[in-house]
């Protein structure tokens, strides 16, 4: 597609529920990133995919968070047993190769609200 697409744009869920957030990167981009952004703060790194594999998942806060990219394009971020503290905007970004210094292209984010 023309840009990075994220769905849904908004997700409201109850504490303890499971949610999936989807990211469709720019076609041909091998690198895909998930970030989390809380109000008034900069993005916080979660996970980086190079192709189908998670090259760096050091930013995932705990084992309730998991992400996949089975075919090297679309990625899904999965959050189990959601907590109120998970409320944030979840941003996805892609870049052509993942090389340092490359521009990242961001999606519009998914606003997750856990009640």
């Amino acid at each position, binding site marked *: 597609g023309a840009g990075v697409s994220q769905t849904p744009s908004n997700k409201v869920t109850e504490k303890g529920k499971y949610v999936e957030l989807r990211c469709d990167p720019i076609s041909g981009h091998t690198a895909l990133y998930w970030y989390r952004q809380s109000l008034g703060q900069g993005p916080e790194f979660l996970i980086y995919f190079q192709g189908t594999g998670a090259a*760096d998942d050091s930013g995932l806060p705990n084992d309730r968070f998991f992400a996949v990219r089975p075919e090297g394009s679309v990625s899904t971020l999965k959050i189990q047993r959601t907590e109120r503290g998970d409320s944030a905007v979840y941003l996805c970004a892609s870049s052509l190769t993942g090389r340092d210094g490359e521009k*990242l292209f961001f999606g519009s984010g998914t606003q997750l609200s856990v009640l």
Partner: protein
Amino acid sequence: ELKVEQNPLFLSMQEGKNYTIYCNYSTTSDRLYWYRQDPGKSLESLFVLLSNGAVKQEGRLMASLDTKARLSTLHITAAVHDLSATYFCAGSNYQLIWGAGTKLIIKP
């Protein structure tokens, strides 16, 4: 551990004025990035600064990098209302480490 600090965090200015946003980082960062974010929108890449002394300009925005001082600046010349946004800098430590952002409001 790389840490990135921006200042100011909030800036209100009149159209036509010049101002500078500062981005300090704590340890070596080979690259320095500037992004813009409009309310409710995604992040838009402005500049990638690759080496010491790098200067890049686009329109009324100019960014520079001094790796010895561990400082990058984003200078706004003759500000216009359309430049109102939140500006983020980010250093590179394998992954991007972001500052908290500078919310810039430019009043007509």
